[in-house]
């Protein structure tokens, strides 16, 4: 027996009552983790390329550890550890924001490392030659180029990050997926809401990846 699908219950009320709150959270979490992750990731990449043994080791252990643990486990770890460290429970939303920033930093750092290495060494030497310090060379010469070379990859990683935010399901934070799940429970129409959830995620991620693809082409022409 085939089940029949009925999507007529999807109306403006459902969207504003259940979906929007989750959508804003997912988008907000993505942006926070992207900005924080790229910043921290850049620092980690610089540490790893610094040639100073303790810094290299520290960054390597951080990045390789986080990259070999499932994200769900990392989410659970932080949800368990942060309250132990600060002595009081932290909301799921804040916990998710911290977790994703620290977790994504590991992935962004590998991208930034490749980006920094894609800038010829002569650029750095040229900077030194005109009297710049290490920090100035990095900030004014190398990082802007590295960032631009890696922009498509950074954005692709961000699309993956947006998809991964659905994993906050593990600690019960109210994200886009949770919004659909709650709506499905309230209207007793779980199947339809899963289908619409998939469609919404697809439309968002697909259009973003099309934009990244176009950006990649434009950057290619310039270079």
């Amino acid at each position, binding site marked *: *027996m*085939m*089940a029949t*699908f009925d999507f007529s219950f999807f109306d403006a009320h459902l969207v504003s009552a259940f979906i929007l709150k989750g959508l804003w959270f997912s988008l907000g979490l993505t942006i926070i983790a992207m900005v924080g992750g790229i910043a921290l990731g850049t620092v980690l990449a610089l540490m790893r390329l610094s040639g100073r043994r303790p810094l290299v080791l520290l960054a390597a252990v951080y990045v390789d550890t986080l990259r*070999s*643990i*499932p*994200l*769900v*486990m990392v989410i*659970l*770890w932080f949800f*368990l*550890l942060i309250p*132990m*460290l600060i002595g009081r429970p932290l909301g799921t939303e804040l916990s998710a924001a911290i977790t994703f920033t620290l977790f994504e930093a590991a992935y962004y750092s590998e991208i930034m490392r490749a980006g920094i290495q894609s800038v010829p060494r002569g650029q750095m030497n040229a900077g030194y030659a005109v009297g710049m310090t290490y920090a100035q060379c990095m900030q004014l010469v190398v990082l802007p180029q590295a960032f631009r070379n890696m922009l498509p990859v950074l954005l692709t990683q961000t*699309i993956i990050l947006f*998809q*991964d935010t*659905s*994993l906050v*399901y*593990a600690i019960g934070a109210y994200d886009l*997926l949770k919004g659909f799940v709650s709506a499905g429970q309230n209207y007793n129409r*779980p*199947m339809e809401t*899963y*289908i619409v*959830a*998939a469609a919404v*995620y*697809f439309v968002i*991620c*697909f259009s973003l*990846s099309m934009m990244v693809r176009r950006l990649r082409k434009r950057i290619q022409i310039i270079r």
Partner: protein
Amino acid sequence: MFGNWFGSKWDWQIFCKSNLEDTRYPGCFGADGDITYLQWMISAWGWTLSVALLGLLLALVAGSLVGVARTVPNRALRLFGEAWTELFRNVPLLVQLFLWYFVAPKAIPGLQAVPSIVLVVCALGFFTSARVAEQVKAGIETLPTGQRNAGLAMGLTLSQTYRHVLLPVAFRIVIPPLTSEAMGIIKNSSVAFAVSISELTMFAMQAQEETSHGVEIYLAVTGLYFVSSIVVSRVAVLIERLVRVPGVAGAEAGR
């Protein structure tokens, strides 16, 4: 310092207990059908590995077919491959899992009697197949076009050209990226917790709740994930070495 965790003492003995009335077994293995947390964790590891390996198998088969489809001259096949990749790549794995688990059995009558583990393998496998397809396609495209033309010029059919000329080299080239997909699928199998498959992450969540010794439980589980991915990367290096053809692309880079 490490024996004490903010006041509550670490207790690794927790693994020798069962969740029934807090019974402790001296050998860490339960009796009379009662199982300890250690046994539960080992069986959860088994579930993680089974789901991941079966999913990987499905992903390699489906991903190779789709990846090849994206490189053939036939436009319809190429479009199909393209659509497949975009579809499975742009929906979060967890949402895909819910579709397989909650929606597919209702929408596709044949899937009703199928055990839930198969549905999880499908979700994981098809999700990963999009990524495998991408790698396989890239592997085929890195080969010089002369290879394909030479095959066709010698009178091989298209499928023979793929079978004897292109794929043997392309597959060797993509072993390293496929290795990271294999390691990725072990990590991704953790989403199965959401549909109550008793794998490692599910075990971690439940055992943490029951024992309130989350740190010990999570450490052990994280350690098992580590071990699993190290084993996968070792096996991949072994495979790479076994199938290496001296003088062919990728062989020099293979150390």
